[in-house]
């Protein structure tokens, strides 16, 4: 029973919506940026309160341990990104890449996107979840194309087309799920309510579920960025504004993965349907190895880290596919670490791009000399994302490899191969960028360092010590995942 005078579930939805309306109406950059940060901060507070006092499950909305992990992570990264974007966008205004109307549009759409993502994470109805994911995708499409350069348009168009196809396949899978559930649960809203379905899944016809899951995997997998439906991801990351790249990598991919996990839970509850594991393992491993290979040829810094996102989502999907308490724990931990690290990296990359006025890796040299905080931040971030100790990502990757050895030893071979490949590529590119004689612009950095430093310190701390309550909580969720 909730003791708070409001329902936190509704609050994390209302706050972004109201903020979006206000932000669309207000002119002036400074006030909208501050309001954006304030709205994200309020959402974060409400999200944390969900962990403390959990409201009862409703027909349309509910939270359980799994959603709370995602919701809090979502709110945190949304908050820090809004802080980063507040200072970043000022520079874009100055250089004329955006005008003030577009800045208003950007902030309003940012809040709508937060609303949509929160709705997807707390929805109890598989149809509503689909609507929310689609809304989030469409808002990010609009934001990717916001610079209106030819490259941005091409990226946004590709993202729109591929995203829409993915969404269509996911909807078909959802409809098939409903059709499969109707004979067991009855028609109407009940057959789409997750909490009702999870108890009755064993009576559902497995053949239809198999086909439904394939469509869902392909559809939502497009959003997660799994190979072979990943083609939109590098362009969207590279051509959109940097805060959007951070949001895409750190948040949207997670939300899509959450949708996949919810359906995985339903499939596992029905004993006879095909195990969703092997499909997730296959797609995850392919993504890992493919992305690791692709890292070598990249010449644009944002594109490099976009492929790194594909690689890591592959690892996470692979971990959840392996299943079992250890692998699920590793997957959850890796997902958290990846969100924090990747957004930190994109914060750094955004500032680098602003200062050096280029995104080409060859033209960025000697960062640690010209901009020490930025340079060493990037070094730390890349070391983390490559999976080296003592950062938290090393811990989660290690756990993934261990659990693979325990369950299916031969799979560990391609896994480790992929990890090492990626490591080599990233460190190779890093060396040139961070060290050596500085080149390019030497002006001061205008954006705030705070988000990047916060994320990186969290990841560093996780490498040494994770607080006991969090460990227990993750373990509990891992056991739920089956």
């Amino acid at each position, binding site marked *: 029973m909730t003791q708070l005078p409001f329902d936190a579930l509704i609050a994390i939805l209302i706050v972004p919506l109201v903020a979006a309306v206000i932000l669309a109406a207000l002119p002036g950059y400074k006030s909208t940026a501050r309001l954006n940060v304030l709205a994200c901060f309020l959402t974060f507070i409400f999200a944390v309160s969900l962990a403390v006092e959990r409201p009862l499950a409703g027909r349309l909305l509910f939270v359980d341990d799994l959603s709370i992990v995602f919701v809090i992570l979502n709110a945190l990264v949304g908050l820090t990104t809004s802080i980063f974007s507040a200072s970043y966008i000022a520079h874009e205004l100055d250089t004329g890449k955006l005008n003030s109307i577009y800045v208003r549009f950007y902030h309003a759409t940012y809040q709508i996107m937060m609303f949509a993502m929160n709705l997807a994470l707390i929805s109890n109805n598989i149809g509503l979840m*689909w609507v929310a994911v689609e809304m989030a995708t469409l808002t990010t499409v609009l934001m990717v194309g916001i610079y209106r350069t030819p490259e941005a348009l091409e990226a946004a168009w590709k993202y729109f087309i591929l995203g829409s196809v993915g969404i269509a396949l996911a909807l078909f899978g959802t409809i098939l799920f409903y*059709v499969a559930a109707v004979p067991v649960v009855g028609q*109407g809203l009940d057959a789409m309510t997750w909490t009702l379905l999870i108890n009755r899944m064993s009576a559902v016809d497995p053949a239809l579920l198999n086909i439904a899951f394939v469509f869902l995997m392909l559809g939502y997998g497009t959003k997660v960025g799994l190979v072979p439906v990943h083609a939109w991801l590098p362009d969207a990351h590279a051509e959109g504004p940097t805060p959007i790249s951070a949001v895409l990598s750190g948040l949207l991919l997670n939300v899509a993965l959450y949708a996949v996990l919810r359906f995985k839970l339903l499939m596992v509850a029905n004993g006879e349907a095909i195990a969703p594991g092997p499909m997730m393992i296959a797609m995850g491993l392919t993504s890992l190895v493919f992305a690791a290979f692709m890292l070598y040829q990249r010449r644009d810094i944002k594109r490099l880290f976009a492929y790194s996102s594909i690689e890591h989502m592959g690892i996470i999907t692979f971990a959840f596919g392996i299943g079992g308490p250890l692998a699920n724990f590793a997957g959850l931990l890796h997902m958290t670490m990846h969100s924090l690290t990747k957004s930190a990296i994109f914060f750094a990359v955004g500032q680098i791009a602003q200062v050096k006025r280029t995104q080409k890796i060859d033209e960025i040299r000697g960062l640690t000399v010209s901009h020490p905080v930025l340079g060493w931040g990037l070094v730390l971030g890349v070391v983390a994302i490559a999976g080296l100790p003592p950062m938290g990502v090393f811990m989660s990757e290690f756990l993934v490899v261990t659990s693979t050895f325990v369950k299916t030893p031969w799979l560990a071979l391609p896994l480790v191969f992929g990890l090492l490949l990626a490591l080599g590529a990233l460190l190779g590119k890093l060396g040139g960028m961070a060290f050596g004689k500085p080149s390019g612009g030497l002006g001061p950095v205008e954006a705030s360092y705070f988000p990047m430093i916060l994320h990186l310190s969290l990841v560093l701390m996780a490498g040494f010590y994770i607080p006991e309550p969090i460990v227990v909580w993750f373990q509990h969720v891992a056991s739920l995942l089956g």
Partner: protein
Amino acid sequence: MINEALSYDVAHILAGGMLLVSFMLLYQDRMYGLLNIFALHAFVLSLSVAWEAYVNHSPHLYVTAVIALVLKAIIIPTALHRIVQRLGIHRTVETTVGIGATMLVGIGLVALSMALMLPVTDAADPLARQDLAFALSIILLGLLMMVTRRNAVGQVVGLMSIENGLILAAAGANGMPLVVEISVAFSVLVAFMVIGIFLFRIRERFDTVDVHVLDSFRGERR
């Protein structure tokens, strides 16, 4: 009053008609023809959904039928007509593969979706079964259309025909609540808004909507 066999037959005719119109969409090579056939596609969809509403006594499906009719059969094709006229877009729609090969692949896809959906939906009632099988065929044909067209308008029409197939599937699944119908209508609205913005911007930048021209800006080559 209407016996079951007749209700099934009429639904079969309407869904089969939609499939046939999807094939017609595949072989269009002129822009206006494409838009007109798409309007026909949406019209047959609204008839099909309305019949479904009548047979299953689900009045909310009438709303979906009206939305499909007004929005997708009338407003969107007219608006796209105007956009094509105003932007002076090149009037022929090139295809990447020849029409004959496209048709054969289309038939193959229809056979595939029948083979996939029919055995699996044994438990469901015949109307839902056939709606799902036809819907999957229409979705796959829409995908084929998107893959074989080089023109942005053609790709968007393919996307919207996929959405039509989804509406057919949702209507066929009995009792699917209003949530999904609103969402489908809403996705149409937003998609159209996005299409409008993009078509204007693409034309502005490139003087054409041939997406192969966009390829030279593919970042990978940089």
